[in-house]
């Protein structure tokens, strides 16, 4: 047998050559090739290719546009056929549209949220040079990473490490001293102020509208205010420069001169403040020379082009040169990373909000996949009913390309319509979504995202259309018209596999939602907290004298008043300078310390295990109360009336309280000591108010407050609201995941509904025959639902162990958590099964009750 000419060249020739010339030219070329092969076998291939290329000229090239006038007409025809198809099968069209569009809308909202999350704090110029210095403190109960750093740290860092260009100390606006009142003549405003070292605006390049970042704080009383504040107080930013305003807080008051105005902070900034005051001024009131005390936050800006990594070891050991036997190390974290990565374990970044971001991305992916799977399942299932149409078209002379085009354009059309509906849904639901997430998202926020979503939609359409397009158009017309086309077994398996996947995911989501809800409920009910926050308000006061508290107690709605810095979920400070009888010298246990006035334990309803709450009748103010954990840590057998040294002062133990959760639920209860504070040391008052009398009582408290502190604004908070705020991200996750789980199951059921309808429709004749032969309605339903039931049941079986594992993992992150109960898994299983049955059942019931004569007559 002679050698064959090169295949590709031949294929090319066949592709471009006119059909009526092809055989002659091909034959001649092959003959010449064979001749050439005899003579010079190696050159023959190349010779053939050359000859083919020589023929690539207008005389021989066929017309690719068979009939130019037909193209537009065909497109219109295809659209018309598609439209008629939609109208004829309204239900499946509607199911397809709803499923895909809700899925897309949901995915888009999630993406928008994620996009907003990752953008937070990234707006600053040279953000890769701005780092926060964090402190990790070792104690026997664990390593803890905190934001507070020693007072002199910033100055020392700037002086001693050349790679650090600027370092600043900041007392954030969230501290007590940061909340105050600004007064300009009669104009009074509440504002959030932070105290910062003079170089603050060189570390954080917030854009300045007025003033020069290098000479903002030349005087102790200089202040830089926000644009909004400037407009509010002085009509416009230009006008504000050099003006004087009065700043009043409980502890720091005085008049300040405006030396600059910064542009309003974007919503994507985590630290929000209205004015920046001079840290030097703060130091006058609260000197920070002691390396052992940590209060301000420290931020540094690295020199241009200096990488942070080599610097870390230098910074880490920095404290060793300042404090003997320091049990703390320092670390650097990029400021803009702090928002997403704010959980630390063992001094290392261990996650934080980023986990929610990832979680939601995964959910988005799942929903997208479920929606797309649905769409494809339904489209491919429906396509098999179009076999006859394909046959007729082929007989009439439609080319394969035309058929492919028709099916592709049809499914792309549905996908595109879904996209439009999705956009509509997004616009409709964005306000609600914003309310749920506490964000200000807009559709136009990320045009790239929108394009990406459109791309995904069209890709889904393409994928869904590809199967019918190529599978159906590939059949021979005769076979198709004789009805010899069967869906392949593989196809059925794929379809079942996809249903299984959908329902497994739905089950997983439902279980997760139940577990998350129970846990969040558990946290928020706070029954395990050990103290009662209900009807407790608290506010900060400057030097609350006894007469003030007495006046408060006289208000009929106030049941008790207590002073002290105990606050929900916040650990404020601590010490390891506690000595007791029998303490071993190397014991470095860290005790949280709280300063309490009389009455606070009663106000918060903290239960005593032993002894009494602080009481005036006891006489000496040197009293201390321990929690049970502290007693355990100290190893005291009979703690009552023992004397211990706290920071060098001898104090007598007058009571032991139950372990109450003063920190977040993620933490174990740490040992703590409660010290009796003179009123002026505890500038926070908590009031228990009688239920039902909140409005009147608060009004009365306000008038008492204003009588004692003229000029200050009475600013109070409900302790339980404060507590809710602590777990707000968990609650948002819980609420959002509930909606997403509902969506997932709805979309899955839509798919199942479509398939059930389709299956019932395809088996009409079979049902008719069965009924004629005596099958009951129930028997028919059993046959029709059996298949789906098995798949859904299998999905549940697959999903439950996975969800158990996930739930157990998640719960383990909380120190206090609920136990997984069997019904958390049984309920979703029953729910999913029931919904699936209802979905299929209604369809099959209709199919089973059809008069057999009618469907057999067709």
């Amino acid at each position, binding site marked *: 047998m002679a050698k*064959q*000419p090169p295949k590709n060249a031949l294929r090319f020739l066949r592709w471009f050559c006119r059909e009526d*010339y092809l*055989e*002659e*030219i*091909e*034959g*001649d*070329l*092959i*003959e*010449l090739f*064979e*001749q050439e092969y005899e003579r010079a076998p190696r050159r023959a291939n190349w010779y053939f290719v050359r*000859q083919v290329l*020589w*023929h690539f*000229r207008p*005389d*021989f090239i066929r017309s690719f546009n068979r009939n130019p006038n037909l193209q537009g007409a065909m497109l219109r025809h295809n659209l018309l056929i598609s439209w008629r198809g939609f109208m004829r099968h309204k239900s499946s069209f509607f199911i397809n549209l709803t499923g895909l569009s809700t899925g897309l809308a949901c995915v888009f909202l999630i993406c928008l949220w994620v996009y907003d999350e990752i953008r937070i704090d990234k707006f600053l110029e040279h953000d890769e040079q701005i780092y926060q210095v964090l402190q990790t403190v070792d104690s026997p109960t664990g390593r803890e990473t905190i934001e507070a750093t020693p007072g002199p740290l910033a100055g020392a860092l700037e002086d001693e490490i050349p790679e650090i260009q600027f370092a600043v100390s900041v007392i954030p606006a969230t501290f007590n001293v940061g909340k105050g009142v600004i007064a300009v003549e009669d104009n009074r405003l509440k504002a959030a102020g932070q105290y910062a070292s003079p170089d603050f605006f060189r570390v954080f390049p917030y854009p300045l509208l007025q003033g020069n970042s290098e000479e903002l704080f030349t005087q102790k009383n200089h202040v830089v205010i926000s644009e909004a504040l400037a407009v509010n107080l002085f009509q416009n930013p230009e006008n504000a420069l050099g003006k004087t305003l009065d700043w009043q807080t409980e502890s720091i008051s005085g008049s300040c001169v405006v030396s600059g105005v910064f542009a309003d902070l974007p919503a994507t900034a985590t630290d929000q403040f209205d004015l920046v005051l001079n840290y030097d001024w703060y130091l006058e009131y609260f000197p920070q020379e002691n390396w052992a005390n940590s209060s301000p936050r420290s931020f540094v800006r690295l020199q241009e082009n200096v990488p942070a990594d080599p610097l870390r070891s230098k910074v880490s050991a920095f404290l060793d040169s300042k404090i003997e036997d320091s049990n703390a190390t320092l670390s650097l974290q990029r400021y803009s990373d702090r928002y997403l990565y704010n959980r630390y374990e063992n001094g290392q970044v261990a996650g934080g909000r980023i986990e929610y971001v990832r979680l939601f991305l995964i959910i988005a992916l799942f929903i997208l996949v479920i929606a797309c799977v649905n769409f494809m399942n339904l489209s491919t299932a429906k396509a098999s009913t179009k076999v006859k149409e394909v046959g007729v078209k082929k007989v009439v002379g439609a080319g394969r390309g035309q058929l492919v085009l028709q099916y592709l354009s049809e499914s792309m059309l549905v996908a595109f319509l879904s996209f439009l509906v999705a956009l509509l849904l997004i616009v409709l639901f964005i306000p609600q979504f914003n309310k749920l997430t506490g964000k200000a998202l807009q559709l136009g926020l990320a045009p790239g995202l929108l394009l990406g979503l459109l791309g995904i939609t069209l890709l889904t359409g393409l994928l869904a259309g590809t199967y019918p397009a190529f599978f159906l158009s590939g059949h021979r017309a005769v076979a198709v018209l004789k009805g010899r086309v069967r869906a392949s077994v593989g196809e059925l398996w794929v379809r079942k596999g996809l249903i299984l996947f959908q329902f497994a995911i739905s089950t997983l989501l439902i279980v997760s939602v139940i577990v998350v809800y129970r846990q969040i409920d558990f946290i928020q009910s706070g029954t395990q907290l050990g103290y009662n926050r209900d009807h407790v308000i608290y506010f900060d006061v400057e030097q609350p004298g006894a007469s003030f508290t007495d006046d408060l107690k006289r208000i009929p709605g106030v049941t008790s008043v207590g002073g002290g810095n105990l606050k929900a979920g916040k650990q404020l400070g601590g010490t390891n300078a506690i000595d007791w009888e029998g303490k071993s010298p190397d014991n470095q246990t860290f005790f949280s310390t709280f300063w309490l006035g009389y009455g606070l334990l009663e106000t918060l309803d903290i239960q005593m295990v032993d002894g009494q709450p602080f009481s005036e009748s006891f006489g000496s103010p040197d009293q201390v109360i321990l929690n049970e954990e502290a007693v355990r840590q100290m190893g005291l057998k009979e703690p009552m009336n023992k004397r211990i040294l706290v920071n060098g002062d001898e104090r007598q133990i007058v009571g032991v309280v139950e372990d109450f959760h003063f920190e977040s639920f993620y933490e174990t209860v740490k040992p703590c000591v409660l010290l009796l504070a003179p009123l002026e040391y505890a500038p926070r008052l908590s009031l228990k108010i009688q239920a039902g009398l909140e409005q009147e009582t608060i009004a009365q408290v306000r008038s008492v407050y204003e009588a004692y502190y003229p000029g200050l604004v009475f600013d109070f908070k409900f302790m339980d609201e404060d507590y809710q705020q602590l777990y707000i991200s968990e609650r948002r996750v819980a609420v959002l995941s509930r909606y997403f789980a509902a969506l997932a199951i709805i979309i899955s059921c839509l798919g199942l509904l479509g398939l059930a309808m389709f299956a019932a429709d395809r088996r009409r004749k079979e049902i008719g025959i069965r009924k004629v032969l005596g099958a009951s309605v129930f028997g028919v339903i059993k046959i029709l639902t059996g298949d789906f039931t098995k798949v859904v049941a299998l999905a549940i079986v697959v999903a439950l162990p996975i969800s158990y594992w996930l739930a157990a993992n998640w719960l383990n992150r909380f120190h206090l958590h609920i136990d997984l109960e069997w019904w958390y898994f049984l309920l979703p299983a029953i729910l999913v099964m029931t919904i699936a049955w209802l979905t299929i059942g209604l369809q099959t019931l209709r199919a089973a009750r059809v008069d057999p004569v009618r469907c057999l007559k067709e």
Partner: protein
Amino acid sequence: MKPPSLGEFEELVLLTVAAQHDEAYGVSIKDALEEHLDKKINISAVHVALKRMKEKGLVESRFGGITNDRGGRRKKYYVITFMGKRALDRQYELRTSMYQKIPKITFG
């Protein structure tokens, strides 16, 4: 009726078709031309000439039978038509008559 014009290469191909009466097809024409002209001829040029002449009605074609040669492709045989023959005749007359008008010229 005036026969259509004839290019030089077309004329040569047409001559070959006429000479190989009823046995002329692409490759045989190419071979004959290469032999006479003593130079390489590209088969595509032959095909172009044949198609154009067929459009002008100078040649007719028919398919041969299927053989095992040529990968099973049929040959397409070309025959000269009446019009083709007339075109050749006219061309020939034109040339001879003009040639005869050349006075006796001798070189050296």
